[in-house]
């Protein structure tokens, strides 16, 4: 039997406001070359600036992946010619990655992180009828590259690793980590060998379109490489392959050239960056809570597993819950969020931040439910109303007329209770004193907090008082 060895390189676009080495907006656009200045285009004479926010985001990611930090780091130039590379070099961190030697816990084991470094993205090449055109919107978009150690031994390991990595980055809020939109890109190195023998020849599979497909690609590679070895052949050269997601097979793109010479040297236009302990601690203190901690917390608060899973899977819901969790009953809140609210969000493709139900009226609603002021039946009516119209729960209740008790059975009970405790008034009534009715109505209103429908209540009162036996 062969042992599989997998290492993964992930490029992640950071969602900073501006690009990493210029003040151009970091924004996706279908219109090409909209967010571009002379620096992004590599014009003669330009110099890079350095986006501090990007360093902080990369530092957050490094800390979240348990990396050691290079407290004095510099940038390097990676020199090569390619049309999508305006300066003829990419600014990256070859010598001093901001983070190194970390790990991700995937449950049953830890996967090592070799390094995490900051670099700039290239232009996007668009191949069309007029030849290849360049879109520089992407040029200079900040990336972090996360290189794992070759610690994964199966497709399952790889899928778990990527799922976990994605979740961590998502919760840091530093990237959209959408593989399908290219904000997270996975390249995967796969080799197989017999335990106790030297490692096999690495095959790289580039730009795989989803986390599950990474698993599929590795599965196929294990099969393909095993067949070669079983035939007594060798895997002679390192290759770059791609996954064809229709057939779920990998296809050769090119045999890797040996000795790729990028002529790295320290970027002379950017002075060394010192990450002081104060700065690191500051970034650490402002890091969001991670999914694992939140899961644990929600469990302890009594939220059920299904709800936890749903909420953790939707960052907006999770952040919303976090913003109210100290002032409401968490179980009721989670039920509401994962019920009608989530249905609405899903149906309308919106995030919870884009609707009129907010922290304030949501808290009011939850507290009214737990305080017994609002029934779950009323809540069902209130939720869509609040989502569409906003405002306070109190106003919504008024507008929807939910504050009147019209239920005759309920009112019957209340009226009976009032009569039972006011024999004097019944006596007065029997004596022909009209103000007794007025008084009793007042008592009914008092009992219902003013919510009893006066007409119905009065009707019931009149019919009950007539036959009331003192």
């Amino acid at each position, binding site marked *: 039997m062969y042992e599989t060895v997998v290492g993964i390189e992930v490029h992640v676009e950071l969602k900073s406001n501006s690009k990493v080495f210029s003040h151009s907006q970091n924004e996706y656009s279908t219109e090409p070359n909209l967010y571009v200045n002379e620096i992004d*285009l*590599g014009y003669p*004479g330009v*110099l890079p600036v350095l986006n501090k926010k990007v360093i902080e985001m990369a530092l957050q990611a490094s800390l979240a992946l348990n990396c050691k930090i290079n407290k004095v780091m510099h940038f390097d130039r990676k020199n090569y010619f390619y049309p999508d590379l305006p300066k*003829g070099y990419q600014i990256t961190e070859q010598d001093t990655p901001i983070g190194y030697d970390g790990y991700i816990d995937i449950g049953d084991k830890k996967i090592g992180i070799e390094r995490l470094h900051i670099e700039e993205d290239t232009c996007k090449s668009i191949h069309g009828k007029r030849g290849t055109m360049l879109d520089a919107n992407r040029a200079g978009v900040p990336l972090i590259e996360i290189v794992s150690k070759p610690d994964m031994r199966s497709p399952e390991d790889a899928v778990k690793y990527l799922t976990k990595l994605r979740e961590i980055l998502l919760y840091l809020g530093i990237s959209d980590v959408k593989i399908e939109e290219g904000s997270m890109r996975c390249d995967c190195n796969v080799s197989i060998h017999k335990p106790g023998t030297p490692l096999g020849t690495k095959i790289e599979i580039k730009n795989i379109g989803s986390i599950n497909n990474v698993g599929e690609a590795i599965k196929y590679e294990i099969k393909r490489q095993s067949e070669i070895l079983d035939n007594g052949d060798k895997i002679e050269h390192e290759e770059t392959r791609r996954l064809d997601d229709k057939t779920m097979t990998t296809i050769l793109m090119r045999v890797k050239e040996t000795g790729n010479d990028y002529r790295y040297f320290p970027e002379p*236009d950017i002075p060394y960056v010192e990450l002081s302990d104060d700065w690191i601690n500051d970034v650490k203190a402002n890091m969001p809570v991670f999914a694992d901690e939140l899961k644990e917390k929600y469990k302890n608060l009594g939220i059920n597993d299904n709800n936890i899973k749903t909420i953790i899977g939707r960052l907006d819901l999770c952040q919303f819950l976090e913003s109210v969790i100290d002032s409401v009953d968490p179980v009721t809140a989670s039920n509401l969020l994962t019920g009608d609210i989530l249905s609405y969000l899903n149906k309308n493709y919106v995030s919870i931040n884009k609707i009129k139900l907010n922290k304030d009226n949501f808290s009011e609603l939850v507290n009214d439910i737990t305080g017994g002021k609002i029934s779950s039946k009323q809540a069902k009516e209130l939720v869509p109303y609040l989502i569409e119209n906003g405002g306070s729960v109190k106003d919504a209740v008024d507008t929807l007329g939910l504050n009147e008790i019209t239920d005759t059975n309920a009112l019957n009970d209340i009226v009976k209770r009032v009569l039972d405790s006011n024999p004097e008034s019944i006596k007065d009534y029997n004596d022909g004193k009209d103000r007794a009715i007025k008084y009793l109505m007042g008592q009914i209103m008092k009992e219902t907090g003013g919510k009893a429908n006066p007409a119905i209540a009065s009707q019931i009162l009149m019919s009950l008082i007539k036959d009331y036996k003192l």
Partner: protein
Amino acid sequence: MSKYLDLSIKEINELLKNKTIKPLDLVNEAFERIESSNLNAFITLNKEEALKEAKELENKEIDNILFGIPVAIKDNIVTKGLRTTAASHILDDFDPIYDAEVVRKIKDSHMIIIGKTNMDEFAMGSTGETSYFGNTLNPWDNTMVPGGSSSGSAAAVSARLVPIALGTDTGGSIRQPSSFCGTVGLKPTYGRVSRYGLIAFASSLDQIGPITRNVIDNALMLNVIAGRDDKDLTSSYEDVTDYTSLIGKDIKNLKIAVPDFYMSDAIDKEVRNKVTNIIDMLKKAGCTVHSISMKYVENAIPLYQVIALGEASSNLARYDGVKYGYVTSEYKDIEQLYKMTRYEGFGREVKRRLMIGSYILSGKNADKYYRKALIVRKKLTDEFKDVLSKYDLIIGPTNTDSAYPLGTKQDDALKSFYDDLLTIPVNMAGLPAMSLPIGFKNGMPVGMHIIGNYFKEEVIYQLASYIEKELNLNLDPRGDK
């Protein structure tokens, strides 16, 4: 023909203020002089725009001493809408979309940009002869090199075509041509002047500085261009001072070092004698002058070849025919587009240096050469720091000799680097330094080198102004006016 441009900046400013002349008079005079000059000092003239600006200035208040003064800009500093070529075929139709920071500051001071000066291609050369637009002539003797790479800037100022020009200095490119042309050229401290918009040759060495006819004009110009620029991360936060503040001040307490390397047999004897005379003069004036020895300065040329050429090979990678500049006419694929564009677009000296630079950074060579060079550079820098902790200034000759005939060193790639034997160490350490005319050898100017401590340009000006006043040289190459 008027002769306002023979006057000092201060005198011109007086005439402007009392309305004897208008900026337009200065601009007209500059173009008359340039158009009747045979020096090939300019690549592109900014005539139409300059005349327009001069007229516009008539309605503006004279708010600073450089108001309305014509200035020439070396053609590796980008000027929005004004062709900027770096004297290369590969950029010979390049029209920048933005202004360099120094150009922005010049425009803010209402100085008038007359044109872009000739230079060695991408500032690679020390004779002006590698320019795609032909070499510049030395105003003192048209058979002699003007020096380089700021050949046009030095020649234009020397010949009184413009009172002030900007040069750039990577290994001596302001000081050496200043020395050969008899002008005052200052390379400021690395980081004193923003490099934003300077077409990079070697990023860790390049610096923009003024070339003028006299010391005070030079200091006035540095006042305009110095200062932190957030667009250049290597520019310094160090406070800017008035660089004229020590001019004319007593020099008797200055402590001055003369490294023996700067007075060795490698330097022409007559040049050394001139410097020795100055040393005697300074001693008489009460300066302390000591001969010292420095261990690492002799490594400067190999250091330069490794660091400058390594960086250049990367800085010039962007000229690939894809985005701007020259593109070859026929190619069948991207590989050929690159190769032919660069083969046809760059001159011989540039290609030679790019090849050496690429080799130096290749594979294991990066450790063998580049990283080792950085270590030696640090040692050299520390040695300078040590000397300057004991002395205010270091002096010596700017060059090994005065200007030599055109065509002499073109085919000897190594020899031309030796012109910069004494200037390169200063770039390696990032120090400020000036070349000041101190006399003539066979009718050609000889320059003295004054090296200062970091961000202490005003002390250089202090000493230079004293020597200038004492010598009172006639530095006008036109002979009898």
